[in-house]
């Protein structure tokens, strides 16, 4: 039967004109079908690559240089899982639910097609360029500048299609799921654009305009909020639509959903610096990141509890319905991850966990547990409806659920054990105060069994996804594609609505403006007066809110109700909520100049050959396993040297602080070992470091750097603040040859007769010998020669 729905059902009946008409809507469901299949295909690919990189960590021989090494495949895995699997799933879910929630067909079939094919083209471009080594070196934002532009354009197409649909909607009230979608579209656009500002050098090479700590702050503001606004808010929106549908009951508390929405989007945007705790980032930014991360627990659990309590009274269905099983488990994993996240953001806990596998476990509890299981629940619910047939096999879906759940648990427990073990070993000292495990490889070999356990868990999860793919394909083949339709009763004459002016100059907006002005005054007064103004702001906020509440209690049309009916203004408020945190957090650090950061002249720009070596380092994804940030701990100083400073990385575009130490920190690697050690280490890591799991890079011996492009790179870097003199740029090729020759002469003296001064390996050695050495290192690296 066809649904007969009264449009704008929440409006008081008197506000609707008496004359009505019935309108038939045929939804655009083919776009949801396309995105479902794309998500499944790329989900299998992304998770397969995940299993391969897990194997490479457990069994280094699984690396196949040069294209299929861990450093090149890991970004492919993360990009595929996030943007291809979850991205396509999210688009499928958003398009399907939005049409039904607003009672309107998608605005444009053409834009839908451009969105779909454009996004798939971007994914294919990523799948080709990342293994080839074209990367910006910024985690989850590795794609080079032409692809960044393509992402922006396609995202704009998505936004136009979405907001155009909202503009054509019959149902005026915007359900809470739509709010989450709006927050996603706005914030992802802001994050992507701000983090992707880069100076192109060539068709597939660019440098971030930010350097050092500034780049770190922007990158992790982006990185964390990619998790927040790509992997969380759209999925919460999906939860608010599909979970009530599957359970057959409305969301537990709509009031809670409103409060938790606004809290979540405001607080989330601040939490990025928790990825940089105990580093050289300014203390105030670290504290801000920590405080907001802990505060984030409350709105996150608001969503989690709202999801789980929606199942109140329906738990008996969970026993028999695999879809509800997936949703219930997904929301539980969301609760677990959002408890663990704030915990990991507390500085002392972070001191133990950061750079270890604990963080990897945390991320995967979120992606496999929350995103993956939500995707499965949604697909199992949607595909039978998109093809007009019952699910092919509920038993198979049940089996998938248990396999996936045990797979995740195996994975996460392995990473907890691995992370805590390694974190404790790094800081362990004996009775004399010396490091108990001074050889980093010892701490890696201790956790290798956990790498096999992780591989097994990941493999189980992948098998589950393959089972789901089979189940859904069988369902689709047995049915046929159908588009949903509905008839809605709409008033012939649109109800009288308040004007934009009434909304924009409504009492709540005026109150927020007054509070903001008082708060902003704090910036220009002294500390004592700041406290007074802070008190005034809070008082005004509280008293104003109470006054507005009392004044509007009996009003016919209420302000927040109006706000929800105006998609554009609602979008503006979402943007303000998100930007308030972003601007306040980023601006103070972004306004500081390189000269101020490097006032004590700790840092000098890289010489041309070192710069080329650095690009090799970035291309091979060395940052995926090595940090360049010695934290402010005694045990780190004992192992690696003095803690890193902000000035040391000021000319690093992009920064290379890293996020994981599968290998040791390299911030003070320069002059630690002779050139010969590095030469041997890159060709066969185990020849100088027994037990190492690093992949070999023999190709670097024969591949050469292109000296003709170095000057262009230096010019690009000069334009973003690296102080290269004109003469240095002109003499780049000559300097490159000179430094290469010095390294090769040193290698020859140590028994390597045929090293090519233009080889990528020589350039990489030049770079590594620069790290932490001021001014530039002596040609021979460390004083002690390995050959002897």
């Amino acid at each position, binding site marked *: 039967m066809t649904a007969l729905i009264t449009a704008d059902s929440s409006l008081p009946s008197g506000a609707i004109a008496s004359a009505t008409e019935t309108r038939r809507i045929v939804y655009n469901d083919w776009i949801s079908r396309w995105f479902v299949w794309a998500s499944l295909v790329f989900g299998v690919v992304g998770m397969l690559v995940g299993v391969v990189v897990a194997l490479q960590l457990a069994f280094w021989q699984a690396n196949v240089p040069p294209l299929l090494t861990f450093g090149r495949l890991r970004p492919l895995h993360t990009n595929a899982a996030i943007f291809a699997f979850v991205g396509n799933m999210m688009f499928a879910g958003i398009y399907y639910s939005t049409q039904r929630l607003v009672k309107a067909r998608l605005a444009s079939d053409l834009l839908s097609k451009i969105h779909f094919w454009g996004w798939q083209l971007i994914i294919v471009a990523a799948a080709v360029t990342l293994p080839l080594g074209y990367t910006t070196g910024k985690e989850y934002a590795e794609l080079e500048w032409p692809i960044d532009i393509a992402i922006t354009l396609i995202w704009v197409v998505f936004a136009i299609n979405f907001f155009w649909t909202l503009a054509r909607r019959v149902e005026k009230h915007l359900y809470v799921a739509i709010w989450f979608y709006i927050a996603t579209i706005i914030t992802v656009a802001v994050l992507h654009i701000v983090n992707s500002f880069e100076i192109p050098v060539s068709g597939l090479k660019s440098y971030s305009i930010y350097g050092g700590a500034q780049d770190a702050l922007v990158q992790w503001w982006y990185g964390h909020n990619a998790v927040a606004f790509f992997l969380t808010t759209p999925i919460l929106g999906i939860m608010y639509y599909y979970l009530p549908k599957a359970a057959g009951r409305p969301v537990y508390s709509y009031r809670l959903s409103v409060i938790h929405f606004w809290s979540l989007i405001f607080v989330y945007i601040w939490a990025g610096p928790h990825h940089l705790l105990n580093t050289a980032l300014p203390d105030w930014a670290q504290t801000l990141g920590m405080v907001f991360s802990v505060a984030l627990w409350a709105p996150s659990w608001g969503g989690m509890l709202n999801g789980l309590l929606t199942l109140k009274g329906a738990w008996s269905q969970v026993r028999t319905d695999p879809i509800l099983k997936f949703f219930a488990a997904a929301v539980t994993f969301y609760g677990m991850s959002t408890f663990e996240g704030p915990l990991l953001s507390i500085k002392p806990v972070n001191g133990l966990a950061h750079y270890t596998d604990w963080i990897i476990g945390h991320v995967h509890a979120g992606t496999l547990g929350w995103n993956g299981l939500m995707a499965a629940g949604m697909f199992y619910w949607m595909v039978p409806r998109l093809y007009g047939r019952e699910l092919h096999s509920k038993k198979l879906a049940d089996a998938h659920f248990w396999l996936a759940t045990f797979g995740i648990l195996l994975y996460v427990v392995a990473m907890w054990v691995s992370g805590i073990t390694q974190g404790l070993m790094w800081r362990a000292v004996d009775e004399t105060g010396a490091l108990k495990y001074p050889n980093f490889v010892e701490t890696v070999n201790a956790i290798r069994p956990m790498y096999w356990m992780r591989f097994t868990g990941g493999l189980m999860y992948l098998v589950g996804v393959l089972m789901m793919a089979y189940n859904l394909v069988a369902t689709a083949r047995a049915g046929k594609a159908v588009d949903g339709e509905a008839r809605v009763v709409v008033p012939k004459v649109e109800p009288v609505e308040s004007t934009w002016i009434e909304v924009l100059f409504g009492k709540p907006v005026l109150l927020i403006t007054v509070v903001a002005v008082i708060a902003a005054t704090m910036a220009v007064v002294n500390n004592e007066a*700041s406290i007074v103004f802070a008190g005034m702001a809070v008082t005004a906020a509280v008293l104003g809110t109470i006054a507005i509440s009392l004044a509007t209690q009996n009003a016919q049309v209420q302000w927040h109700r109006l706000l929800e009916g105006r998609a554009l203004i609602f979008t503006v408020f979402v943007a303000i909520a998100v930007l308030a945190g972003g601007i306040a957090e980023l601006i103070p650090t972004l306004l500081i100049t390189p000269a101020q950061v490097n006032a004590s002249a700790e840092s000098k720009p890289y010489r041309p050959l070192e710069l080329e070596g650095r690009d090799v380092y970035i291309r091979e994804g060395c940052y995926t396993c090595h940090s360049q940030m010695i934290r402010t701990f005694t045990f780190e100083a004992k192992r690696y040297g003095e803690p890193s400073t902000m000035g040391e990385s000021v000319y690093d575009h992009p920064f290379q602080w890293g996020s994981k130490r599968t290998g040791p920190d390299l911030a003070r690697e320069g002059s630690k070992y002779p050139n010969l050690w590095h030469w041997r280490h890159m060709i066969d890591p185990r020849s100088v470091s027994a037990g190492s799991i690093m992949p070999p890079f023999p190709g670097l011996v024969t591949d050469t750097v292109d000296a003709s492009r170095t000057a262009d790179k230096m010019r690009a870097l000069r334009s973003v603040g690296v102080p290269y003199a004109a003469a240095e740029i002109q003499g780049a090729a000559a300097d490159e040859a000179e430094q290469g020759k010095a390294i090769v002469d040193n290698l020859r003296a140590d028994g390597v007769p045929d090293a090519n001064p233009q080889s990528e390996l020589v350039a990489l050695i030049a770079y590594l010998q620069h790290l932490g050495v001021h001014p530039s290192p002596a040609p021979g690296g460390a004083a002690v020669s390995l050959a002897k």
Partner: protein
Amino acid sequence: MHQELFAHSPLLALPVGAMLLFLAAWLATSLRVLTRPKAEIDAAARLPLEDDHERR
């Protein structure tokens, strides 16, 4: 050095101001939403369930 610089930067009032703005907005939203009529809330919450009998 840079810690000194930040310690004297008036720009650090920005995060404090933004946080106060958030607190004010949060209070306003909470009070507002808690005082909305139950019938209106219930109608909004049922929106996803309205198309349960759509034609296929």
